[in-house]
């Protein structure tokens, strides 16, 4: 049975360099983090930093006042929630556009310039295939590793004999040739 949560946690496998780098980064980040909290921390350490609280919060520039930020947060909420609700009501369970029919294999093959039914069948059925490309990324040859029988992507002749369930094969043959 495979584990449901395949988590890897092996801190002991870090190199000394990695441990030192991580420790340094974390320390710097914590220092910056605490520094940006100085105005709020200073409320706790009132005597030590009254002027920071005073200048940063009470006398903060008007535009950055708490009220303005709260207003911004409120606007974000109204805009995002309204648009989300509009989308939800307008599109839930409704499709404004039609879906598309599945693309036949032959069509897909044509897109990739594989027009030969036998090659297409090889690509759809064989389990181990070698693919060869030209410099422009065009598929030039497909080769089944089982049979080692090479197929050029241009039409060359009849396909191989069906191997799997006959009905399935017949259907596939028809879709590729028809």
């Amino acid at each position: 049975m495979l584990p449901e949560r395949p988590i890897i946690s092996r801190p002991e496998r870090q190199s000394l360099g990695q441990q030192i780098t991580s420790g340094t980064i974390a320390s710097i980040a914590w220092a910056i983090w605490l520094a940006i909290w100085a105005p709020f921390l200073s409320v706790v350490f009132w005597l030590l930093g009254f002027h920071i609280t005073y200048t940063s919060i009470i006398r903060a520039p008007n535009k950055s006042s708490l009220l303005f930020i709260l207003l911004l947060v409120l606007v974000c909420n109204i805009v995002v929630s309204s648009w989300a609700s509009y989308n939800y009501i307008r599109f839930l369970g409704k499709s404004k556009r039609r879906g598309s029919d599945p693309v036949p294999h032959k069509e897909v093959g044509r897109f990739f310039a594989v027009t030969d039914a036998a090659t297409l069948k090889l690509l759809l059925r064989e389990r181990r295939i070698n693919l060869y490309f030209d410099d422009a990324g065009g598929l030039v040859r497909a080769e089944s590793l089982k049979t080692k029988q090479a197929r050029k992507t241009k039409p060359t002749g009849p396909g191989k004999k069906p191997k799997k369930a006959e009905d399935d094969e017949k259907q596939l043959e028809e879709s590729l040739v028809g």
Partner: protein
Amino acid sequence: MLGRLFLDFAFYYPLTMAWSWIFGAVNYYLRRERNSPTRTHPPELDEWPKATLIVPCHNEGENVRETLAYLAEQDYPDFEIIAINDGSRDNTGAVLDELTTVYPRLRVLHFTKNQGKAMGLRMAALASNSEFLVCIDGDALLDRYATRWLIWHLVTGPRVGAVTGNPRIRNRSSLLGRLQVGEFSSIIGLIKRAQRTLGRIFTVSGVIAGFRRSALHQVGYWSTDMVTEDIDISWRLQMDHWDLRYEPNALCWILMPETLKGLWKQRLRWAQGGAEAARRYMRNLLIWRARRMWPVLLEYVLSVVWAYIMVAVFVLGLLGLFVPMPHWLHVPGPFPTWYGAVLGSTCIFQFMISMFIDRRYDEQASRQFLFIIWYPLAFWLLGMCTTVVAVPKAFMKRTGTRAVWESPDRGIR
């Protein structure tokens, strides 16, 4: 004057975004998540269609056995697995060939040369016997019920082109690993939920996403010349009016970098991917028919502007410490305390909300939060640095250059 304007934007943009994500995520939770069935009891369908599970692999010899073991255990009635060995130089090909004898549902496509992930996905779509594709990375472990959750959306929503799942970080040995646990829960999960309620998603997660093949066919499948094929396909599907969804119950356990270099490279690639998509599709998006994508585009453009303004704020603030600055360029120090305290409070609130919403998917994640409570600030700084470097890179890149694999850092094992 200009300095003050910069500082205000540098402060109000992340504040506005953080609160928008919080309210969007809460809305999603209340409307779609709170009363939904639990992860192990996905909704039922009368008939489950055949699904193709696709795993592109490049040098994944160490991981692919575990990946395929999880795929083979999917609680889903009818599926095939297509693994792509994309010109691997290790034993990936041999391992995959061997596994075809173990798992009858497994099929393997071998590329003789490295063609890139997008080409792997394209060929898998060509070789697929199904209309529904579930794509994961070669080192990702798909939760047993994830396929049902993803396919359910694709079957019940005829205009759903893709569904993205919920990646969870496996490796939590180091500080960087734990940081990313917090990031995926408190930031990425929140953003995806908010974007889902607002109607458009910036990107599906390339590491776990379900697709409708006919939708991919209409937009021309994955592009082979974009560094992040997931952002590109998400934008193109939505530009073609396909709906993209987020399904938090579709879990996928992933490995992330645990070195600074690895993390930087990965995030730089992500940032470059966004910039490449913006560069390529900007013109197509500025039309009335594409108006629903405007918020996504606007958010992206503002995030780029913000990144450069932040750099300006830092530079002006630091200069101001040593050189007398003209009044109009004056910035009151690089770490203004009032702004910082407000952003700090927002971070704590964001973490509390995400801990509450996320607890049903990953109980252990909340243990990490106390140690990394400052992470949202680091997230914004990392975003700033990667954007500043990635945008010029993306705009100077020659179009049509094939994006091929680079093996990422996968952390401590």
